């Protein structure tokens, strides 16, 4: 390296090096652009396979409350309700738990505890979803059944499993956000006589809000897209439970589980096939909505903070 550097420097038109640099630059560019291309292709494929469903299946069938493909009943409502119930349940469990863990780890816990907790939580993220699903099937479902539900395979069972799956995401990202809050904020709050609790709740957490929102949204994204664990523990009954608290303790069928369970045996190009892809479009739209909502929330939050700082 030391030998070649002056040699290249002595020749202004260092052709080989210039060419190599250009190559690498282009390769990086191609790698970056290919991501866009792949997303575009996925979206195109999804639309090509899924859109025909909206022409082949009458709208009142798609909006119907019955999913029974072998009788051409393609009501998406029970699947949508199923996914929503499981996800809402997961968020209700995971967000407070995750947030509190992050605050404890970032603000309260002594250093040695944090050094044990952090790798343990990262390990939780490394557990394959199918293992968690198996745990839900073998351990959790019998517990819920003993608690009085007719069956342990319910939306709630799925919610608990999904909550545990989204916890590492929520914890580590919100902890990062808390960590990014300048030390001066805490010092200032403590200096004007605030207790530690007041400092955390009134100063540090609001200051880290945008990061916490991103953490929650990413957690939701993980929950709604998860398939295998949910397929194993929610019972897969395409049923719309009656409104009320009890609806979480009913078996449901999620959109992802429906695609996973039925795609393998469906005839290529059939109405059923197209409808499964239409569910994929629906999932895509929902995730896209959540992400852009998160983006907007974070955006306005950031602006407000900047203006208040000025």
């Amino acid at each position, binding site marked *: 390296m030391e030998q070649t550097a002056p040699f290249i420097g002595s020749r202004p038109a260092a052709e080989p090096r210039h060419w190599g640099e250009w190559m690498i630059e282009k390769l990086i560019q191609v790698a970056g652009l290919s991501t866009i291309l792949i997303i575009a292709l996925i979206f195109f494929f999804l639309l090509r396979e899924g859109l025909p469903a909206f022409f082949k299946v009458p709208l009142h069938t798609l909006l119907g*409350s*019955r*999913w*029974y*493909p*072998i*009788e051409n*009943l393609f009501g998406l409502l*029970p699947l949508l309700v199923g996914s929503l119930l499981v996800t809402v349940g997961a968020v209700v469990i995971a967000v407070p738990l995750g947030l509190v863990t992050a605050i404890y780890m970032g603000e309260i816990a002594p250093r040695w505890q944090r050094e044990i907790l952090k790798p343990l939580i990262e390990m939780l993220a490394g557990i394959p979803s199918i293992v968690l699903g198996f745990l839900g*099937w073998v351990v959790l*479902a*019998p517990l819920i*059944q003993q608690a009085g539900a*007719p*069956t*342990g*395979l319910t939306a709630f069972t799925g919610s608990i499993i999904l909550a545990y799956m989204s916890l590492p995401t929520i914890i580590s990202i919100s902890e990062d956000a808390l960590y990014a809050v300048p030390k001066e904020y805490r010092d200032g709050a403590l200096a004007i006589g605030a207790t530690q609790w007041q400092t955390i709740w009134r100063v540090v957490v609001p200051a880290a809000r945008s990061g916490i929102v991103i953490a929650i949204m990413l957690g939701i994204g993980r929950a709604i897209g998860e398939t295998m664990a949910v*397929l*194993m523990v929610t*019972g*897969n*009954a*395409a*049923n*719309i439970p009656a409104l009320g608290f009890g609806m979480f303790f*009913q*078996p449901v*069928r999620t959109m992802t589980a429906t695609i996973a*369970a*039925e795609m*393998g*045996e*469906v005839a290529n190009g059939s109405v059923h096939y197209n409808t499964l892809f239409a569910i994929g479009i629906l999932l895509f739209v929902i995730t896209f909505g959540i992400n852009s909502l998160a983006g907007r929330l974070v955006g306005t939050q950031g602006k407000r903070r900047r203006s208040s700082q000025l």
Partner: protein
Amino acid sequence: MLFVRYPFKFSLCVLLLLMASGGIWISACQSGATVAQTAPAENQRAIQNKGSDTLVNLALAWAEAYRNVNPTVAIAVTGGGTGTGIAALINGTADIANASRKMTDDEIAQAKQNGITPVEFTVAIDALAVIVNPANPVSKLTIAQLADIFTGRITNWQAVGGNDAPIVLLSRETNSGTHVYFLENVVRQNQKDNKDIFVPQTLLMPSSVGITSEVRRNPNAIGYDGLGYVDPEHEKMIAIAVDKKSPYIAPSVASGADGSYPIARGLYMYTAGEPKGVIASYLDWIQGPQGQKIVADLGFVPLPKR
């Protein structure tokens, strides 16, 4: 004829050997040569095996496994439905017809007009056991009661003589053949104009094992599964009657085999006249231990041991 073809094939082999750089060509040539060498003239044509879609996977598995038993016999398996297979047998275009029902008298008469006497071979049994938790006091049901349970007209075990507890319904996924069989023969009670379907609260399990393990731990659950999947120590099999006046029959290999169990059906193969040569030995192999092991592997009820 063979003498003329053989050197040609041989020289082709040499030519390809010279041309080819990889081993793929070589193996292709060798297999071509063995067929020409060993296959006797009468077996040149593949055995045509056509019919029932229920049987098609089983028939394919048999045909594949039989290649290891007698590599000189080629069997071509096609589906299309029982009716298609029987029609092909009558017209002489199929050697073996697969059927998930017995041939009707009309079909037999038609075949006889064409100078063909169909000979029936039972090759496997397709029996469905309705299972509940051993703690459940209910041990017998009629088909009509089962239909009421699975369509949601009955939702409490009390209505069929059990405890005051909700019924938890378990079924296979809709893409399972077993699901469709149960739908037609139990939920719709074999009535053609009956359009009943499973109640939406039915839990759809991705596998047979999913049904048995949920039944094991849930005293309120009821499900159905191939007899091969049921472990009588952990799941109780319901005795089933066609109607209230008929006897209640428990599912077993014996009751499945003699036809007394109402939701079991024989799966048949028909040949045109008494089979001879390779067809006879093929059917004999199917009904023997090797063929029946494949039956069990694919979730059907094997024939009672001979």
